[in-house]
């Protein structure tokens, strides 16, 4: 099986079909991350996944092959999630409680979604990456372009909220 880095290299040298393999390899992963961050909103998760792959292709030349492609893609997906959430809040009217005025079709582990509901968007991202995907603090800090100390303090604040 070809490594991610090999597939990136081949894509850059003119073979878009190699990128198709990367898409199929990480489609479930990105979709799952999207589902967890959007509390089971399938449509938003598919949008996040799609935007992430498009952005990843756009900036493929800037990918540092010394780091794992999966981490890089995760960073892109998190940024796409933030962008989409911002747009959702701009375009959809909000009711008095600040909740979305439409009811999205939700699926998945509701216990987890209800658990992280009180967290801010940033905290949700950090909590999910750390405790569900078991990323190290340094890796999270690296892929989100934040300092390790900041990540640690945000995570402990999130844990305090959940206790």
């Amino acid at each position, binding site marked *: 099986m070809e490594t991610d880095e090999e597939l990136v290299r081949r894509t850059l040298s003119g073979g878009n079909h190699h990128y198709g393999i990367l898409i*199929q390899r990480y489609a479930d992963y*990105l979709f799952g991350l999207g589902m967890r961050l959007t509390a089971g909103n399938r449509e938003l998760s598919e949008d996040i996944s799609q935007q992430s792959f498009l952005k990843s292709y*756009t900036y493929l030349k800037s990918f540092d092959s010394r780091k794992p492609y999966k981490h890089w893609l995760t960073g892109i997906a998190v940024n796409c999630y933030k962008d989409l959430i911002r747009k959702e809040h701009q375009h959809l009217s909000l009711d008095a409680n600040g909740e979305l005025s439409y009811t999205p079709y939700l699926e998945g582990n509701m216990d*987890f979604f209800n658990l992280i509901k009180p967290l801010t968007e940033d905290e949700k991202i950090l909590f999910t990456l750390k405790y569900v995907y078991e990323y190290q603090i340094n890796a999270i800090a690296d892929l989100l372009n934040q300092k390790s100390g900041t990540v640690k303090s945000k995570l402990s604040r999130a844990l305090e909220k959940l206790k």
Partner: protein
Amino acid sequence: MNPLETIIEKEKETSYSQRNKELFSFYILTLINQEQAFRKLNRKLWISLLLITGGLFLLLSPTSEMMNYFIVSLSSSSMVDIFKMAVVSYGFLFVLIALLKQRSTI
């Protein structure tokens, strides 16, 4: 194991699946190709516009004066100057062709 850990463990075991991965991959690649084709066309249009503008300028400017200037400068220039001019012209042409053929990423 406290309730928090139980929920997290349950979530770790939950798997999410993108619907029809092959179709999804095909769709993304189509979007990429579409964007690349659009950019390529856009670049070609700009280069064509540049060339047409240059050509029109040459055609519409006073030809006799230009010819006079060309003949005078050609008669006073040496073979080395003509060679330099040819190199620059071919270089410019090569850059234009390279720009037209360059692969684009979106």
